Structures are given as structure tokens and as C-alpha cells.
């Protein structure tokens, strides 16, 4: 079941030059069960932003009925969201799509790049609740782009790469020592981020016989499988990223 609910913005915390965490308070009804990797289509009332914006569920607190979104300011719509005053109403269509599934091994690596780190916090929390300790590998351009590392560290080990070497290992995530060993010490990769990064990870997973779940960030309109705009080619032809994904097994994609 999908819902169309009004939330109230109760907190807005700027993390970096372009990342803001929004905390949204639900209303009278309890939150539905959310899966990590699922997203919401968020209504933006701003000139220049016509369609809803798909945003990953970053964190959930069922007791407080709060959902957190990690918003990267990339255009008019996202900037309008981060400019909202506390107390504003935000309408969300949610929960949408198929999320990450539980692994059949306890050895997992969660790899995020850019705003792709957003769903990995909620995923990490979910894994932890299921007795699996998440390890994170986070790649950014510079140290200034690292977001909420403390929250991730509460759940498990956090490794970092930056393109300019200003934090962690210099280079891309694939250059981190954890990816360099002959036999990886993890069996599952969960990833979200730029497609180029995820394609490299998918290839790496294939080479080492690992499972790899990727979350695509295709542009979408409806978010509910009606318009067929956000398709991705799969083994079974074009599938909607919004309903068949956004999380796919990398082997299912035509990569």
C-alpha cells in the first residue's frame, strides 16, 4: 500500500555546502513499514519545479513517526526543499519501489558515492537489527563532501576515499585497500551512487563471485509505474526503476 501523506518539517540541518538533512514528522497515523532502499516522491511547491522529486529514505524513527531525507542541492526543486522553513508542510507519496533485501551472508560492504550514501544509513540500521554488522565504504570528491559520518560509525566501521586525498584513501572507492585484496573479506555489496561507480562495483562483484545490489537514480515522473519514463534495460527487457527497482541485482541489469 502506498500513501499520500502530509508531513511537517521539524528539523533542517545543513551538513555541507550542498547536503541538508530534513526531518519530517508524520501525522496521526503511524508510519507504514519502510524498506531500506525505498523512496518517496516529494512534492515541491516552487516555480521551476513541476514534478515531484524522488528521494531515498535516509533514516526512520517509527516511535517518533519521523522520516529523514538527505537532500543534495542539485537544482531548483531540491534547493526549494532545503530552503523551507521549519513547520512547513511537505507532501510525500511513499513508500515506493523495491528496496534492498537481506543477505545470505554476514559479510557485507555498503558502498556509497555522492548522495548515494542516503539510503545506506537506513540499510545499515536494518542490517544491524537483523544481526549483521554493516561496513561502509564512502567515496566523495573532497573531505568537505563527507556527510554524517558519526551516524554511520554508530552502526559499523566506516572507510573513506576522496578524489583529492583530503580524507581517507586517495582515489575512487575501487582504489580502497578493502577492494584490493585477492579474496575480498565480504560476500555482498550494497551500493548506491553514480552509475559509473556502480558499474565498476558490479564488474568487481562478478569477478569475485559476490552478490551486488545496486540502487539506480534514473529520472522519473510518476514514481508508481504508470508513465514508463524511468526504465532501465534488464534481462527481461525494459523495467521501471520506480516499481521494479530502484534496487536491482546487478546481474539482472544489462550492464
Amino acid at each position, binding site marked *: 500500500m502506498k500513501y*499520500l501523506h502530509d508531513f511537517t518539517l521539524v528539523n533542517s540541518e545543513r551538513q555541507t555546502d550542498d547536503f541538508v538533512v530534513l526531518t519530517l514528522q508524520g501525522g496521526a497515523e503511524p508510519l507504514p513499514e519502510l524498506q531500506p532502499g525505498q523512496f518517496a516522491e516529494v512534492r515541491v511547491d516552487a516555480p521551476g519545479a*513541476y514534478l515531484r522529486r524522488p528521494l531515498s529514505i535516509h533514516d526512520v524513527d517509527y516511535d517518533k513517526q519521523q522520516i529523514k531525507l538527505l537532500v543534495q542541492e542539485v537544482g531548483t526543486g531540491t534547493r526549494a526543499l532545503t530552503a523551507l522553513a521549519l513547520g512547513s508542510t511537505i507532501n510525500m*507519496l511513499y513508500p515506493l519501489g523495491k528496496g534492498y533485501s537481506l543477505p545470505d551472508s554476514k559479510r557485507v560492504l555498503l558502498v556509497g558515492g555522492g548522495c548515494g550514501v542516503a539510503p545506506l544509513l537506513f540499510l545499515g540500521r536494518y542490517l544491524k537489527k537483523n544481526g549483521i554488522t554493516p561496513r561502509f565504504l564512502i567515496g566523495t570528491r573532497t573531505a568537505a563532501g563527507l556527510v554524517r559520518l558519526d551516524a554511520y560509525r554508530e552502526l559499523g566501521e566506516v572507510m573513506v576515499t576522496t578524489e583529492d586525498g583530503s580524507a581517507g584513501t586517495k582515489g575512487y572507492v575501487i582504489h580502497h585497500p578493502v577492494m584490493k585484496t585477492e579474496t575480498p573479506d565480504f560476500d555482498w555489496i550494497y551500493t548506491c551512487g553514480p552509475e559509473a561507480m556502480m558499474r565498476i562495483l558490479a564488474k568487481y562483484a562478478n569477478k569475485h563471485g559476490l552478490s551486488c545490489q545496486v540502487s539506480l537514480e534514473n529520472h522519473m*515522473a510518476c514514481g*508508481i509505474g*504508470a*508513465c514508463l519514463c*524511468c526504465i532501465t534495460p534488464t534481462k527481461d527487457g525494459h523495467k521501471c526503476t520506480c516499481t521494479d527497482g530502484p534496487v536491482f541485482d546487478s546481474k539482472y541489469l544489462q550492464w
Partner: protein
Amino acid sequence: MVDLKVKLGSLELQNPVMTASGTYGYGEEYEDFVDINRLGGIVVKGTTLHPRQGNDYPRMAETPMGMLNAVGLQNVGVDRFISEIYPRIKKYRTNILVNVSGSTVEEYVETAAKINALDHIPGIELNISCPNVKEGGMAFGTSCPSTIAVTAAVREVYNKHMMVKLSPNVTNIAEIALGVESAGADSVSLINTLLGMAIDVEQRRPVLSTITGGLSGAAVKPVALRMVWQVAQAVKIPVVGMGGISNAEDAIAFMLAGASAVQIGTANFIDPKVTEKVIAGIEDYLVRHNMTSVAELKGALQA
């Protein structure tokens, strides 16, 4: 009590609000938000004789108050529509119209003939105007002789309500509407999307995989309204108006311009409940203006 019922030839609509093809899936996608049985009708996805994969990604670009799409008629084909989808959706107590497309006259005819056999489908909408298919659609909808040829050929095999959907990408839409009427259409619907384009200047590339695509949403409303008005002046068959309708006021404007009913497309993406709100808003308007029937709105423009 005001009367919201509308008659489009043999079609009886409980209210004038339908949903536009390609934006509402098969209705099922919206079940969590709307009671489909309360709609005047739904027009399901563009359906072709053979399954179609549609165009490559990217297929969508947001534009000021609108969007471009280049879906390219991705659909499972008429046979799987009949065997898999029809059994699921025939329960809806509303008018389900199938939007029919093709690359040749024969494909249109064969597809329409198969749908003619379905008891719970009271009509088709002939899509002679899709801008996102190379051969076919576009060519048919934009020249008068080919439009007449498709309409007349389908008329031979299809004996329920035949709505013909017009392309706005023409010089004189009223002329095409007249041609379609003479070829046996029971009603016309308009507008399909307006051919448009978007460019990513940083990458110096077109945003859509097909370079050009179809513009829809609030941005097209004034153009659509003008065309509906022109067509309604020209033809005697009922006109179904669409293009950017986002609220009751928009829907009423189309009816004042001469539409008997309306379709809502892109606005469903922004508010999945918009159809129910438009129905309630029309009712409200009629009460406020001391009108007893929605039929009184049709063409009531005081110009």
C-alpha cells in the same frame, strides 16, 4: 443535486473526468489513491499489435510547468493485454477505453478488431498522433488523407465507440477533425503532446534519447484550449479536451470552450488524487452558478 452525467455518443460517463492514455497505466497503479469506479472513464496505455520495448532511456525531461516524454509506446501488445491485463481490470465500473496505435493501417485494424471482442471495453481511442514513434503515429495524425484512411479502415471492423485522438503538431487541426468526423469517428479527443526538445548545455547534448519528445502538463494548456475551441466550432461529434488540466477550473475552461468531457494526464503525477478533486470542484462550480447539469457548460463561452 447537480447532474454530472455526460453522453458521448454511445458512451455514458457518470462525470466528465477521464484519465489520459500513457499517464494512468491500466488504472491499477492509482488504486491506493483513487476509487477508479468514481471516474468518468480511463484510457489505458497505448496498445499496439505487437509488443513494443519503447525508446531508450532517458525518456523524460522536466520543463517549465511541464515535461517532455519519449516513451515510444512501450506496451505488452494487444494479445497480452487481452490475456493478462483485461481480466484484471474488467472489474472496474467505469468506461475503460483502449488507446490503439500502429505503424500501418493494417496494424490499427487488426488491433481494433481484437479489442472489439472485449465485452467490458466500450470504446477505443485511436492514437493517430503519437510524436514518439518514427514511422506510423506521427505521419498518420498530421496529414489529412492518411488520418482519414486509418479512421475509415478501423471503422469497418470496430462497431463500438471510436474516439480519435488528434495531434496538435499540425497547421490546421480543425481540418483534420472534420476529416476524421467524415471518416466515421464517434468523437475526437485532443490534444496529444506537442513536439518539443530539451538540451543539457553543460554536456551539449539533447536530454532525451530521441532528441525530440512530447510536451505535456500545465505549460501546454493555453494551446490545447485554443485547439479544443477551434475543433468544437468545426465538428458536430463530441469533443474530449485535454492538455495541462490540473484542477476543476482548468476542466471547466475546456468545457466552456466546447468539450463535452476532459482527460487528465500529467497532473496525476503531481497529485495522484487530482481526478477526484476535479470532479468535486466541477460539482461545486455548478452549484455556485445555479446550474443543474454539467451539460450546460458545453460551449457556454460568451464570446
